[in-house]
């Protein structure tokens, strides 16, 4: 049926948008052991930086990764100046810092770009229809890009020395130290990558919608639901969970009003935390 196929593609699009930022939350949680609420603001920042770079007539496919790298550096700068000094003080101080950072970044974007609704200079295009699945070229490119970055992240975590250091620190930090892993390098790297991934997610979200200073905040709850559902610390888990939540929230439209999508995400989040805090999907990396 036509309608179901639309829902399916919507779920895929939502999943593609959520996957990378949720993976960033997951990575930070896995390695640094705190939920970072500022990830959504790195999405916003990344999206606006990409727009800024588009202003120099860079095409979006070039501006987006560049903006993501810049966002990674911004994230790293805050980590090294503020978060680093509370590294050994448990989960609460970095959580509070991330809240402060959320407020700061959201309003920095507002200060620099205003409250107006903006969008990327990409022309609208008519969709492809393949076997009843309707998808626009932009969405297709977005989904493929996210998949490529996801695969690169997973391969990077598996195949590179840094990736192994990240996984080692995530699964057993004490042992990682006695095998010669330098934790600060892992922390800094993870923060940079998380900033990068969040920014790509932000650009993806902004291509699908528009740019506003609340761009990232609006997906905070779904992102945490995805990250927790996927078992905090797991990138593949986040990808599966994003798809699952995407399908659940799209198909929930058959029974629930659309306005409850976010509330549904919260219920999923709370239920998983209360019943099985390790997450439902544990891909184990």
């Amino acid at each position, binding site marked *: 049926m036509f309608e179901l196929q639309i829902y399916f593609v919507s779920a895929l699009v939502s999943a593609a948008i959520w996957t990378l930022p949720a993976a960033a939350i997951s990575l930070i949680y896995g390695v640094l052991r705190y939920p970072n609420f500022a990830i959504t603001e790195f999405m916003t920042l990344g999206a*606006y930086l990409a727009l800024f770079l588009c202003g120099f007539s860079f095409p979006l496919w070039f501006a987006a990764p560049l903006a993501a790298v810049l966002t990674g550096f911004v994230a790293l700068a805050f980590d090294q100046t503020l978060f680093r000094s509370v590294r050994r003080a448990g989960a609460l101080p970095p959580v509070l810092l991330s809240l402060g950072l959320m407020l700061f970044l959201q309003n920095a974007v507002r200060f620099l770009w205003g409250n*107006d*609704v903006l*969008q990327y*200079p990409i*022309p*609208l295009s008519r*969709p492809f229809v393949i076997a009843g699945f*309707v998808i626009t070229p932009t969405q297709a490119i977005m989904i493929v890009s996210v998949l490529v970055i996801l695969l690169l992240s997973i391969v990077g975590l598996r195949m590179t020395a840094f990736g192994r250091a990240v996984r080692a620190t995530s699964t057993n930090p004490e042992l990682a130290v006695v095998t010669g892993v330098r934790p600060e390098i892992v922390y800094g790297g993870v923060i940079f990558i998380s900033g990068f991934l969040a920014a790509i997610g932000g650009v993806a979200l902004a291509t699908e919608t528009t740019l506003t200073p609340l761009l990232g905040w609006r997906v905070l709850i779904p992102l945490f639901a995805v990250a927790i559902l996927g078992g905090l610390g797991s990138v593949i888990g986040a990808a599966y969970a994003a798809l699952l939540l995407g399908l659940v929230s799209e198909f929930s439209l058959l029974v629930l009003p*659309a306005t409850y999508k976010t509330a549904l995400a919260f219920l999923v989040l709370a239920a998983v935390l209360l019943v099985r805090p390790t997450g439902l999907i544990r891909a184990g990396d």
Partner: protein
Amino acid sequence: MKRDPENRSILGSISRRALLAGGAGALAAAAMPGIGAVRADEGEIVVGALMPLSGAGGSFGQEMLASAKAALAEINDAGGPNGRKIKLVEENDETSPEAAVRGARKLIEVDKVTAIIGTWASSVTLAVAPIVQANKLIQFSTSGASRITEIQKKGHLFRTEPDDLLFGKAYAEYAAGQGWKRAAVLGLNVPFTAMTVEAFRQRFVERGGKVTSFTTYNEDQTTFRSEVTRAFADKPDFIHISGYEPDITAILKAAYQLGLSGRFIVPGFAVSPDLIKNAGPAAEGLLLVEEGVAEDSPAYQRLAKALGGGSDHYYSFGAQAYDQLNLLALAIEAAKSVDGTVLTDAVKKVSGPEGTKVTSFAEGIKVLRQGGQVNYEGASGSIDFDANGNIVKANFRVAQVKDGKVVPVGKITDVVF
């Protein structure tokens, strides 16, 4: 960043100058409260312009402020009501009720305003009105929500914007006139939608139409694909979207990207040049129903000239703000008072329908000083208020986006409750 540079320079310079002027005034008032208070009685009459200079109504707020200033210049050039100049103090309500309430308090308490003009979003008007009423001031508003009538207690609140019910009926009248029978509705979850849509449905059914689906949505959704699919599912003759610019833009894009084509009718206040640019081909053919202005009236032509726009600009909210300040000034002149309760009656009197037709403050005071009664016919229309401070009947204009331009395609006149 991506704002139209032309737009930016005009509005930017206006607001900057305004800020400087307003700033100097407030500085003086703050530094010398005693003198400020004296002035409020005998010197300038302070009027608050509470407008959405940012947020969803940002572009309209800028237009309204510039229009109010155009009226201000005319009024003060004519010597002002009762020979006193009017000082306009602007405050940004950020299109947010909370910011608006704070802004209103500041206007009332710090600036000691006589009246507040401008509030645009209905939620803002709903929030601000009780405070204004409690202080026995009068307020002019550009909001359509019918619920505003409910909180009207002492008639201190005047709306130059047609009520949502009229808006809803206007859509129905137009659609029925075109011979369309099946309508799907997408409604943003905000104050005006429920009323407009209900009024629309009622009138549309009366005229033999049928609403096939009504789907509400939130502004913060990431995609609108599912909602659009739902609306198109029943093959309607047209789809009415009741919302604001950001979500309507997103919905139009979603429909386009789903490969769907259809007729969309949307409120005019949601369509700015930004929408047309942002939605690009998806906005092509879009029908918009907007509160009409008296395009041929001298008042509107003066305003259009003052704002410097070409013929393709359509200043519907600007016209209202312009009329609001003129009505206020005339009322003060007529009442020889700045007391809110006295002014309430005076506003009703100077707005007509009885009395000599005037289209500007200057004309008005001439009549008034000769002891006559005036009927102000402004830039936005003939403006006659009912007991609830609502305009009695409204004119609407229907326009269509063609090749990226808004082209008038029809009029709906004298829509009544």
